[in-house]
């Protein structure tokens, strides 16, 4: 008897949020740090994504990538190429990418108008 665990089983139909056209800003300090990180390499871009998890539900995922990622929006922000996955675009529209220069808790920081709260370490939001 079919218990449903085989691949023939029909998945639950789910509706993903509609992608939104993202606009974002990068602070001058963050831009300087990104230019340093790219080290002048051609074709590099910043991938800004969101992963599920973290103390508050979602975690930011920042990566430097050297190719176009699938199903991503490609933005040119003051000369920095940024890619944003459509799947998480509704969570990232309007963000500001900043860089905090301090020994503890420093690094890139996302200021997100969509976030109702963040966890203590600042890596997770809801």
């Amino acid at each position, binding site marked *: 008897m079919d218990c449903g665990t085989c691949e023939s089983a029909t*998945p639950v139909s789910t509706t993903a949020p509609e992608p939104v056209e993202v606009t974002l800003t990068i602070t001058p300090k963050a831009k300087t740090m990104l230019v340093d990180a790219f080290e002048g390499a051609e074709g590099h871009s910043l991938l800004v994504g969101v992963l599920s998890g973290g*103390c508050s539900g979602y975690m930011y995922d920042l990566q430097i990538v050297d190719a176009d990622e699938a199903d991503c929006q490609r933005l040119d922000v003051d000369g920095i190429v940024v890619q944003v996955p459509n799947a998480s675009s509704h969570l990232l529209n309007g963000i500001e990418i900043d860089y905090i220069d301090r020994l503890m808790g420093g690094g890139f920081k996302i200021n997100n108008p969509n976030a109702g709260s963040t966890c203590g370490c600042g890596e997770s939001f809801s």
Partner: protein
Amino acid sequence: MIDMSVAFARRDYNVVMVVGDNASAFIDGLSTNAVPDDGGVDRTCFTDRTARILATAFALRMGNGVVLALHRMWTPRLMEHFVERRLGQSLEFRDLSRLNHVTMQVQPGPGAPPLGSWQAQGPSTVARIHDELVLSITPGPMPEHLIDPGLEWTRWRVRHRWPEDGAEVTSDRHPLACGLESFVHSNKGCYIGQEVLTRMRSRGRSGWSLHQGPTTAFAPDDITSEADGLALAVVRSTAQ
């Protein structure tokens, strides 16, 4: 005396499967307990960011999937929670409830499978979730002869301080308040609600907690289950 041969029909249980290469990590990032290894089973809680319970489930790891057996009171909200957080990951959610039925059987003593693991026994997937309790997921409709959980089940639960969905485990409580503390892993990594639960633990303040004792020892409003003069009660600590 508990009739050892009785299998309780859990008509109130759903079976949901999360399938995909990231299924285990996905569940791990949303729940209080570590996802068991392949062939393992454990109880876990899904909490919101204030650590209130969204769902509790028995998680059975099967290859690149995780099967969740859970009370149906939790299923709609948990599915919504999952869908909001899939974010383009290659994950499928399958509701297998109509194809399977769930039973729980008091089965003490040695015998397969060992605690924390599941085995295929004939058509059934049998998981030991307590020294004296096994959970079975079997294809097909619920057999007529199985009995619904009643007084015998309550007796067993109360004797073993086993929190039940809807009685001790409710959506206005956090896991440390309703006897699920052993299913809140202390160092598994981030999950939603972790900060709140970690703070409660480190300060020794959970506010409320589940106690077992004579019925007469508790205020009537605190009692969540009782049988044979013994009770489970969610009690606010006056020492905190």
